């Protein structure tokens, strides 16, 4: 087989389609993972319930959409409500654990994820719900009619992450948050209300998870178990990108989603997940602190 035949065998149009698909899912994943990494980097909390916040956000989106008929109202409503829920969760279950071993937070949030997931099952039933996309326009993309909505999601997710970054960089409260990350005791000495900063960070992370849930809702059905899948992928992204490293998580999210998208050209999607597992293991072997952080000697 010559080189020409080899190149001819590669389906370039499919590769391109999968590249776009990969970037779209990658941006959503980056949105979920940036909330997770924010919570970890600042509070040392591994939030096992993050996927459930994503799922509940999608459900709140479904309900508000049914009530108001406006997708954007649903998006904002879901983010705010779940952010509020995040604040309540932090106050009731995580604040008593401040200062204890970070492992206890895994246990508490695992319990939380069980409660929230079964609550959703109880409240909304096992049947998947659908969120109608806000606009249905499509454009010709090789042999496909590609929906504009997918590109809009990617753009919106990027915009939300950029807003978060700007807030952390320049906003007064963003500076409080960064100060808390750097030195909790010193921040407190400077008059920053550290416990409330932690609550706010958890709320922001929860709100971001909810926003991604609503944005992603139209692509797949909304059901009570959708969080499990996402929290695992978000964990992989966060570890590969480097715990608490926002930029690294975004790059890792896109990288892993692209790999999974390409892999699903050859194997069924349920097996394509293994690719991201393998990436994780290789990362842990060679760059234990994440791909984008220099390994300390």
């Amino acid at each position, binding site marked *: 087989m010559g080189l020409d035949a080899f190149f001819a065998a590669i389906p370039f149009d499919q590769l391109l389609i999968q590249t776009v698909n990969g970037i779209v899912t990658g941006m959503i994943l980056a949105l979920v993972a940036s909330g997770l990494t924010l919570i970890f980097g600042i509070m040392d909390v591994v939030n096992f319930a993050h996927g459930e916040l994503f799922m509940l956000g999608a459900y709140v989106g479904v309900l508000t959409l049914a009530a108001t008929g406006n997708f954007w109202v649903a998006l904002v409503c879901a983010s705010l409500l779940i952010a509020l829920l995040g604040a309540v969760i932090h106050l009731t279950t995580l604040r008593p654990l401040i200062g204890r071993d*970070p492992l206890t937070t895994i246990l508490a949030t695992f319990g939380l994820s*069980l409660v929230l997931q079964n609550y959703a099952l109880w409240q909304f039933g096992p049947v998947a719900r659908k969120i109608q996309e806000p606009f249905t326009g499509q454009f010709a993309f090789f042999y496909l009619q590609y929906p504009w909505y997918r590109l809009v999601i990617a753009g919106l997710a990027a915009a939300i992450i950029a807003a978060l970054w700007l807030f952390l960089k320049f906003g007064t409260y963003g500076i409080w948050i960064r100060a808390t990350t750097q030195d909790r005791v010193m921040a407190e000495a400077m008059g920053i209300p550290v416990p409330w900063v932690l609550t706010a960070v958890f709320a922001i992370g929860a709100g971001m998870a909810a926003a991604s849930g609503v944005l992603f809702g139209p692509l797949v059905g909304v059901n009570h178990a959708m969080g499990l899948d996402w929290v695992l992928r978000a964990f992989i992204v966060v*570890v590969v990108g480097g715990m608490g490293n926002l930029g690294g998580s975004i790059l890792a999210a896109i990288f892993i989603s692209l790999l999974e998208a390409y892999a699903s050209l050859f194997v069924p999607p349920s*097996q394509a997940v293994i690719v991201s597992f393998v990436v994780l293991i290789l990362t*842990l*072997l060679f760059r*234990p602190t994440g791909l984008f952080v220099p390994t300390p000697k």
Partner: protein
Amino acid sequence: MRIRHSVLFWAGFCAIVALLAVAPLGLPKFWAGFLTEILIWGLLAMSSDILIGYVGLVSFGHSAFFGLGMYGAAAALLTVSPPSLWVALPYGLVASAAVAACVAYFSTRLRDIYFAITTLIFSQIFYVIIFTWTEVTGGENGLTFSRPRLDFPGLFSVPFTTETLHWFVLAVVVLSYLILRRITQSPFGMVLQSIRENEARTRAIGYPIERYKIVAVMLSGLFAGLAGVLYAVQNRFASPDFVFFLVSGEVVIFNVIGGIGTLVGPIVGAAFFLLLREVLSRFFTEFYLIPVGIIFIAMVIFMPQGLLGFARRWLNR
């Protein structure tokens, strides 16, 4: 004083084992089977306690070891004829030990949260493989097989009934407990505990802690696989649901509820959890995990030593 303490311990131990041994004779069939199940889950939780309680590594991957034990036993019972318990046991143990070796090699380079996440991801890898490799593992439906006979060559051979199965499981669990207790009190166990207390110092003293951790994970995986074999024999099926990471989460819950670092605690925790589930599922049907989850969170916050630690402190008062 020390002697009296040990006499007290062994007296209590014998009393509890004797009580558990006669229990199936007095209990209705359902509760006798339930007790056997508690013992099996207790063994799984106890195996995970070696890591959580003695090395300080929280494993979210015990479902993989448990599940591979089940599938190993299933492979033996389906392919080797006549199906024999004494073939199923090594098959399951070898399968889980191989998986444990692989997981241990990668995950012990990491600590704390990273260890937990890595073991979780590993168990998901095995879940995906088992779930999608339908020709060999039966995929979503799992594998069903018939129960082997309980035979000691040359001595006797009886079919497994509720009672004999219970006695067999009890014997295995008690033996495992004694072995694990001996291991945790051995110099090896002491090193493990010193890793938990201060890893850097243990390394400075000159112990190769990576090797100790690998052995600990393998040991833990081996006993988890043993629990898997027992579960397969009791329920006559192997299913991918048991490899899913929620099972690992439940095992961690057993540990925290019962009290980590005690070996007996996890069994108590498993009994408490399963009883709670049995009772609550009559009121809440399949949503029993809502109250169970709330109780679990409350215990993490208010009772970090678990039931056993709480009872001990209350007795000492």
